[in-house]
C-alpha cells in the first residue's frame, strides 16, 4: 500500500496531523519501542515560528461531545531552537522509525512552519531547505496577517501571493495546510496550487469557543486561556469529508485528508473522497498506536481485495 506524495515515498497512506504527536516526548515516554512499529509513514512536526512562543495561558483544552477544543497557541522553541535542539533528535527518531508495511526503517520528516508575513515564511522555508534531515515543508497559513488581521489562508488572492513568494525558497515538496475557517475552501486550494504548492492538506481545526462549566470557579466566563480555540476529533469528521471532496474535485495536486479519523473506515472515506494520504490527529491522544493500527487494517483489506 505504499504511496507517493509529491515526490515522497511513504510505506502506507497514514501520517500525523501537525501538532498532535510530539515524537521527542513520545520517544521519552515509550523508548525505542515507539520506532519498532512507528505509527506514521511520515512524521509532521508541530508548527515552528521564527521566534520562540510560550503558548497560551491555561486552560488550553475543552472537551465537547465527541470532540476537543484546543487553544494551545503553538508553543515552540522558534526556528533556531528547532534546528539546534529538536531537529537532530527528530532526525534520529525518523531514521530508526519503521512504519507499518515497511521492510526497512526510515520515515520522511515534514516540517510545519507559520509566519505572519510572506517574508517571515520565506525565511523559515529557506532555512528548512538547507537541512538534509527535512524532506518537505508544510505551510500553516492559519495565521492572522499583521496588517489586515485576516488569516493569510482565508483569502485566495493573498494566499496565492504568499505561496508564490515562498515557492522559490525551496526545491523540497511544499504542502499548504488550508484553513477551514473561510467561505470558499476550494478557491483557496486552487490559489495554493497556482502559487506553486505541491500538495494541500485539510482540514485544520474549526474555530470554536467554550464557556466555563457551571461547576468551575469562573462559571460563565470564557474557559480557554486563548479566548477561542479550534475544534477537532470525531465532531468534525463529516465537515472534513465535505471539504476534502470539494477540494479534491478542483485541484490536480495531491490532497492530504485530515479530520476526525478514528479507524480504517474513516481513512477509507477520505481516500475515496479523493485524498492521497490521510493524517490522524486527536485520535492519537486516545491511543498513540492509532496510526499504525489504521495502516495495518487498510493494508489487510487491500491484500484481501487483490
Amino acid at each position, binding site marked *: 500500500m505504499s504511496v507517493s506524495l509529491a515526490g515522497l515515498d511513504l510505506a502506507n497512506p497514514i501520517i500525523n496531523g501537525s*501538532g*498532535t*504527536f*510530539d515524537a*521527542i*516526548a*513520545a520517544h*521519552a*515516554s*515509550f*523508548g525505542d*519501542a*515507539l520506532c519498532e*512499529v512507528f*505509527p506514521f509513514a511520515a512524521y509532521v512536526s*508541530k508548527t515552528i515560528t521564527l521566534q*520562540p*512562543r*510560550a*503558548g497560551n*495561558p*491555561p*486552560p*488550553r*483544552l475543552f*472537551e*465537547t*461531545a*465527541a*470532540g*476537543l477544543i*484546543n487553544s*494551545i497557541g503553538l*508553543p515552540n522553541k522558534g526556528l533556531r531552537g528547532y534546528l539546534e535542539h529538536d531537529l537532530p533528535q527528530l532526525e534520529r527518531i525518523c531514521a530508526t522509525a519503521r512504519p507499518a508495511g515497511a521492510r526497512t526503517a526510515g520515515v520522511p520528516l515534514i516540517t510545519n512552519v507559520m509566519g505572519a508575513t510572506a517574508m517571515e515564511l520565506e525565511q523559515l522555508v529557506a532555512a528548512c531547505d538547507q537541512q538534509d534531515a527535512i524532506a518537505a515543508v508544510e505551510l500553516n497559513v492559519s495565521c492572522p496577517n499583521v496588517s489586515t488581521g485576516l488569516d493569510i489562508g482565508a483569502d485566495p488572492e493573498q494566499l496565492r501571493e504568499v505561496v508564490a513568494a515562498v515557492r522559490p525558497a525551496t526545491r523540497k515538496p511544499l504542502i499548504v495546510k488550508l484553513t477551514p475557517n473561510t467561505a470558499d475552501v476550494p478557491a483557496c486550494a486552487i490559489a495554493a496550487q497556482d502559487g506553486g504548492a505541491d500538495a494541500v492538506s485539510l482540514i485544520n481545526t474549526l474555530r470554536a469557543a467554550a464557556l*466555563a*462549566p457551571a*461547576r*468551575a*470557579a*469562573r462559571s460563565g466566563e470564557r*474557559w480557554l*486561556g486563548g479566548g477561542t480555540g479550534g475544534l477537532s*476529533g*470525531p465532531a468534525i469528521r463529516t465537515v472534513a469529508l465535505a471539504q476534502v471532496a470539494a477540494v479534491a474535485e478542483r485541484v490536480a495536486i495531491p490532497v492530504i485528508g485530515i479530520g476526525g479519523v478514528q479507524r480504517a473506515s474513516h481513512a477509507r472515506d477520505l481516500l475515496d473522497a479523493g485524498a492521497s494520504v490521510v493524517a490522524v490527529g*486527536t485520535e*492519537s*491522544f*486516545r*491511543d*498513540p*498506536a492509532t496510526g499504525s493500527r489504521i495502516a495495518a487494517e487498510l493494508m489487510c483489506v487491500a491484500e484481501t481485495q487483490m
Partner: protein
Amino acid sequence: MSLAPPHRRELRVTANEALGAYRVLRVAAPDRAPGESAPEPGQFAMIAAVERWGGGGDERPYLPRAFSIARCREGEWHFLLEDVGPGTKRLCELHEGSALWALGPLGRPFALPAPGGRAVLVGGGVGIAPLAILQDTLAGPAPVLLGFRDAAHAQGAALLQDALVATDDGSVGHDGRVTELLARELDSAEAQAGRQQPVVYACGPPAMLEAVRALCAQTGTPAQLALEAGMACGYGACYGCAVPRVDGRYLRVCVDGPVVDASELAEVVEPGAYGEVPA
C-alpha cells in the same frame, strides 16, 4: 522511570469497592512489555472504559482520563476514584469483568528519599492516591498527614496506614487544614536538632499544594508536589496540560511531572486562574 509500551492496553476490572465517598477500582495488571518495570510511586495511567465511553453528561466523556496508580500489588493495579463528572462517573460504575483501556504507566515519579533520609507524606482528598504506593515503597515509616472535606471522605484515609487526619468540618481528627498538621510536624522535626531535614511528598487540590509549597519554602524544607491539569493525551503530544514554571515558561504536567520539585514553581494555582505568562 518505568516505560509504558506505545499503545493502550485492555485491562479487566477485578473489583470495585466503596471507600467512604470514594471507590477503589482494582484491575488485573498488564503483562509487562519488554523492558517495562513496575509502576513507580507518582506515575499515572490514562484510562477509559472500553464500553459506553461517551453519551454521559454533556455527551461526554470522549478523551481518556488521568489517574494515579494508587497501588501495585499481587498482580493488580489499584485506582482511587472520586465521581466529579462524566468520565469518573462512568469508571465508578464498572464492575468485576468490565474492560478498560489503559495507557501507562506515564510521567515522572516521586524521587525517593536518600538512604536513611526521612519523608513526610501530605495528601488532600483524592490526591492521597499516589501516597499509598509511595508508602508501600518507602523503606522505613514516615508520618502520613491527610486532609478531607468531611467524615465520608475521611474514610479514604484507610487506603494508607497510620494516617493522621484533618477535616474541614472538624468531624474527624484535627479540626482544620492538613497544612496545620504539617506545620506542627516540621516544627517538631526542627526541634529535634541534629536530625536530618525531611522531604515533603504532597498531592492534593491546588489550594492545599500551594499552602504546602509556601510552608516548605518558608521553612527551607525540600518538597515534591504531584500536580494535576486537564489532559488529553498524557504523553506529551497535545501540550494541553501546561502549568507555568518559576522562569515564566510552561511545563507539561504529563511529561515534566506530574511530580515536580516545589522549587520549579512560583505558585500552585487553580486551573484557569493563571494570568498571562510572558512569552
